[in-house]
């Protein structure tokens, strides 16, 4: 039994050639199934998206009417905006480090949970709890406590004779504190991995054992390939989430110290709501959309090479 990924091309390929009449009928049927989303998309999403695209060519302080400025906002972004460069850099580093870490960590824990020991249900719950706290205000005080000058981490380090810093206000480490935070909240990819692991037929492992494969070989020859569709799914959404990261920096570091945690979304938010430049913020948003779209496109394209789909129809 297999789960195939949401790749529209492969979806079309899986169908047989059908009669045109049937195509038309299917279009209508599809329309009815899609209608909730289409209504929402046309009614509430595409309008605001187009409007924000229009705003990206204007000066708009949200209080008086937008003024058309042509490409000025985009020109400034690419030629004369240090904070754009800084926030893009911070965000890219953050995504590049936190997404793989979070996925590896989630996969590791999911595999521990999947070893068939007693009590894994309650353990799953324990490991999931950090994720339910989400972006609550309380997270700010908790994180500042743990990584603060008199915080728990420094108490532990003191046992080894290491004197710590205020980690979240050190230019070299502040971003890491936030990376640890998001990696710590690995609950949803873990749950999805866990499900993926349970889908892998046990016979495959038994067969491999007969062939004398060790744990490491089993992992690389069986687990990893069969899990690629799930990895792909998690990768796409964690990547998008990573680019959108906002709350953590907003609540804990406010972008500091010296803009070392100025995430793109935080910069955009400030331009919009504290500097009253919604036009410019919209331009920033569309630049981000293009960046994410490119990365997504690359991942989708590359997925043909590394995502392993079992043919449909097999029984498990």
């Amino acid at each position, binding site marked *: 039994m297999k789960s195939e990924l949401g790749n529209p091309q492969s979806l079309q390929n899986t169908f047989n050639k059908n009669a045109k009449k049937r195509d038309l009928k299917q279009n209508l049927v599809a329309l009815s199934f899609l*209608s909730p989303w289409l209504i929402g*998309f046309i009614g509430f999403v595409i309008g*605001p998206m187009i409007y924000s695209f229009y705003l990206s060519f204007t000066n708009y302080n949200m209080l008086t009417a937008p003024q058309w400025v042509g490409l000025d906002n985009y020109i400034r972004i690419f030629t004369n905006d240090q904070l754009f460069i800084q926030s893009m850099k911070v965000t890219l580093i953050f995504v590049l480090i936190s997404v793989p870490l979070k996925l590896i960590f989630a996969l590791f824990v999911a595999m521990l949970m999947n070893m068939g020991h007693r009590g894994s249900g309650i353990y799953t719950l324990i490991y999931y709890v950090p994720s339910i706290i989400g972006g609550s205000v309380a997270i700010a005080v908790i994180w500042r406590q743990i990584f603060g000058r*008199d915080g*728990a981490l420094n108490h532990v380090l003191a046992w080894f004779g290491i004197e710590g810093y205020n980690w979240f206000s050190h230019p070299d480490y502040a971003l890491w504190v936030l990376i640890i935070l998001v990696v710590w909240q690995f609950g949803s990819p873990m749950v999805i991995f866990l499900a993926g692991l349970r889908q892998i037929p046990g016979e495959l492992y038994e067969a491999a054992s007969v062939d004398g494969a060790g744990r490491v070989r089993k992992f690389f020859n069986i687990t990893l390939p069969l899990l690629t569709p799930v990895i792909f799914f998690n990768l796409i959404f964690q990547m998008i989430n990573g680019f959108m990261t906002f709350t953590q920096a907003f609540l804990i570091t406010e972008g500091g110290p010296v803009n070392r945690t100025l995430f793109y979304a935080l910069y955009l938010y400030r331009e919009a709501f504290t500097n009253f430049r919604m036009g410019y913020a919209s331009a920033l948003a569309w630049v*981000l959309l293009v960046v994410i779209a490119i990365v997504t496109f690359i991942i989708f394209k590359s997925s043909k090479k590394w995502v392993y789909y079992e043919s449909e129809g097999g029984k498990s």
Partner: protein
Amino acid sequence: METKKSKTSSILYHSFIIGFGFLMLYPILWMAASSLKPEHEIFLNAASLLPSDFRWENYAQGWQGFGRYGFDLFFKNSMIVTTLSVVGALFSSSLVAFAFARLKFKFQGILFACLLATVMLPMQVTLIPQYILFHNLGWVNTFLPLVVPAFIGGSPFFIFLMVQFIRGIPRELDEAAIIDGCSWYGVFWYVILPLCKPALVTVMIFQFMWTWDDFLSPLIYLQNTNLYTVALGLRAFSDPDNLTAWGPLIAMSTLSLIPQFILFLFCQKYLVKGIATTGIK
């Protein structure tokens, strides 16, 4: 010999999981412990997990909320919004995902790209046009802007997730149903939906969690205090220029985890088993 070995490895396993789990839980435990500390001790005696004496005042003071608006009201509001959003997400994601996973239709690729694109634009910039839209509809200051989007496919994540689940269900099942004279609606209703139950539980848990934690939409759309949700109520404790009532804030934050905790406790069996059993039998 064999049993001895597995016993050792089992002990190792459990002690690792528990030790590591404690590390994971430490921040949450710290929060729970702090909620029982007197206010000034939260920061001055920060590293200690044990309060010098247990006090429930933070809970009493926090629960009272603001003036005549207590957290009982905020919890009720959160429950209403979250429940309706969960229902909405189940409704829309299963229907839409079915179309993408099982049907062949025009512009399928483009529509799928549109679906993905909607999650790529930071919501801050669509906030204003959306606000104006909802304001003109007269929806501001009601729960509608928080709930309706869930019913009309506001979360592509779930649609994407459901697409996968449905693809995991062997196609022979629906082909057999169609040969038996079933329509696509019948296939959806009688074949796919029953097999998707575990997937729906997954959607339910994630949607519950995200709606419960969300403060941005409530912040923008709920004006009257009697409509405030828990997430918004929590944020009304804090004023960085003045003294944030950290004690009550932490107490109410702790309390606000409980509904999600309970939900996960009851659903984790489905959640884990859920994704795994799609398509079997």
